[in-house]
């Protein structure tokens, strides 16, 4: 299974009404076909009433294994059903990164 598939599977725990998992690694300082940088767009009922920090922490916790094994960056746009207007912001361009 690819990381993308594992992320999609793991995020089903949020019972998302909308889920986009976009691999944006190609825009960064990593080899071709990497799975290091992702953008997530998630609409879920459980985000209602949670602060932005708590929403992000919830998703980070679900993806801890991936973060521990090479997932480097997650852009996250997390909405309750009421907030969702059908689109999300673009991620910023890379500037070289850690070069580790």
């Amino acid at each position: 299974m690819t990381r993308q598939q594992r992320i999609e599977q793991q995020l089903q725990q949020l019972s998302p009404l909308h889920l986009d998992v976009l691999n944006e690694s190609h825009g960064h300082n990593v080899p071709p076909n990497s799975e290091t940088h992702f953008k997530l767009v998630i609409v879920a009922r459980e985000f209602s009433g949670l602060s932005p920090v708590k929403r992000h922490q919830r998703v980070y916790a679900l993806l801890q294994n991936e973060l521990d094994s090479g997932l480097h960056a997650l852009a996250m746009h997390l909405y309750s059903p009421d907030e969702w207007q059908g689109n999300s912001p673009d991620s910023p361009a890379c500037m070289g990164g850690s070069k580790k």
Partner: protein
Amino acid sequence: MATTQEVIAQQINENPIILYMKGSPNQPQCGFSAKTSQCIMACGFRFAFVDVLANPDIRSELPKYGNWPTFPQLWVKGELIGGCDIVVDLHEKDELKAILAEAAPAS
């Protein structure tokens, strides 16, 4: 000698606005860090920053301290405000300036 966790606690408590980022506001090394520092600079308040690429101990320990695994991280008055996505969103909603104004030292 202070542990890294103690150093982090001291930085966060002594600096009302502090950004942990990759590179510096003038020479950011990551698009997420660049965008976040631009939003903060646009608000016009002085802020502290730590380059986590130059401080590997802090880079490895801060994620545990704040339960937040990535950078940048903006901390205001001892509280984690968020990373790039949250800071940009607050800035676009015109809420970031008020959050920073409350914390900013008189200039």
